[in-house]
């Protein structure tokens, strides 16, 4: 059974339709990448899976069960955690408190403040600092660590490399490989195709709210990806 399945999902912001009959499956242990230009509907897709956005039609299945009736705060306990676009750490809380709050509604498991700090050693000396004083890369590591504190089965990552230095992006992608090793299923959204294709075992390209191309990265030519990305 797939960890996550979308069946013909339509999502609107008011009158604007952001997703058109999007369907796909994410299997256990997979790293599924959604790529595409701005406005393609990738972030909307993650927000819908996390429960911040409701589909107008179609349904979202988690381990085969429809979850559309569950609000966002329920889904964390079910095992879905989102690292939102723009990191969204809690600025007035300390780094340590940000991690603690990550475990608020989450599940029990191997991730705790110690193991997260082990994964992101750069956060160790910062635990007592206010999150607002952190650099972009540190905040991104914190946002991922915070999501891990919920011990998710399905981790949703939204544009985690955006605006970060190459060396930090490298570190974050290394961490992603480690996570897959622990059996976590990852659904990642990126504009930056290069990095994400090195870790993904399945990729879907979004164009104006529809999937324009889908498949294994090894089987897709870069010409086909470019064409799907820009809609040529």
């Amino acid at each position, binding site marked *: 059974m797939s960890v996550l399945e979308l069946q013909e999902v339509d999502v609107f912001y008011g009158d604007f339709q952001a997703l058109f009959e999007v369907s796909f499956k994410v299997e256990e242990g997979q790293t599924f990448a959604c790529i595409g230009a701005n406005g393609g509907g990738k972030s909307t897709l993650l927000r819908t899976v996390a429960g911040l956005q409701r589909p107008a039609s179609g349904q979202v299945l988690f381990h085969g069960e429809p979850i559309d009736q569950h609000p966002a705060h329920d889904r964390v306990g079910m095992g879905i955690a989102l690292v939102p676009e723009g990191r*969204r750490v809690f600025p007035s809380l300390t780094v340590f*408190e940000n991690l603690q709050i990550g475990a608020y509604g989450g599940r029990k498991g191997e991730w705790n403040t110690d193991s997260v700090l082990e994964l992101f050693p750069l956060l160790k000396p910062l635990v007592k600092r206010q999150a607002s004083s952190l650099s972009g890369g540190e905040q991104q590591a914190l946002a991922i660590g915070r999501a891990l504190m919920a011990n998710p089965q399905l981790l949703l990552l939204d544009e985690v490399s955006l605006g970060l230095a190459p060396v930090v992006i490298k570190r974050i992608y290394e961490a992603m490989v480690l996570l897959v090793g622990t059996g976590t299923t990852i659904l990642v959204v990126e504009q930056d195709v290069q990095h994400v294709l090195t870790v993904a075992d399945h990729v879907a390209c979004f164009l104006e709210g529809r999937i324009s191309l889908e498949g294994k990265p090894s089987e897709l030519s870069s010409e086909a990806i470019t064409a799907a990305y820009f809609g040529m």
Partner: protein
Amino acid sequence: MDWVNVAIQGILLGGLYALFATGLALVFGVMRMVNLAHGDLGILAAFVALFLFQSLHLGVMWSGLATIAIMFVVGYLLQRGLLNFTLGSDDTRPIVVTFGLSIIIQNGLIMWFSADSQGLDAGQIENISIRINDQLSIGWFPLLVFVTSIVVIALLQTFLNRTKLGRAFRATSDDREAAELMGIDNRHIYGLAMAIALAIVALAGILLAVRTTFDPTQGSFRLIFAFEAVIMGGMGSIWGTLIGAIVLGMSQTLGSQAFGSGWGLLVGHLVFLTVLAVRPSGFFAKTVTA
């Protein structure tokens, strides 16, 4: 020595103002909502305590504690049942709704209890005082109110800083949607915030009722004082609210002493306006940049 005496009265009065203001600051801090019925809810609590005291013959202490518990529940239900639905993109909605609530409470109280001034008789404690020297004495009751306000604020701050639920309050205040992603149900957090706010303002209303007389229309005055304390202290800082309340209390009592009774309130407002002009973000503004 008169002046010292008056200044001390002002500080102690600040304790009462702080109790009225703390809940207002908490609610604003957690959900960015301005509750215009806050003062009236405090006066409502005073009447509930009076009713329990007079009609059910509970002692002052038990009437007070029961009232605080009742207002805690009322706060949660009010938030979950009504005020949560006013929150959203339009900031004016909660203001209009709580303004309406304020009118309903005031008129409801006038209907049931008449517009007469009432008092809650706590017995001897109202009159006894500590004599420091011939000119200087401090009333036990105002001192008790002041100490209570410090204890309440310290407890609230500890709750916010040290407990899991307190962290959830602060996270929700920082970023509601991100907090939801952590599994925090903001509707419940808002309910609890209002429950705590009304429990504290109930305590304030009851202490006011013991200290002096009260009537159904006093809520609006209490609200203005509370606003002034919160804004002078710096929005979002609970200890700042206490300082703001003390400054307001002292301005009022010293103003009365200097210019005659009746001028105190005006001096209080003028000091508030001066602080607003010189330091618009208040004494202890918490400016957090994401």
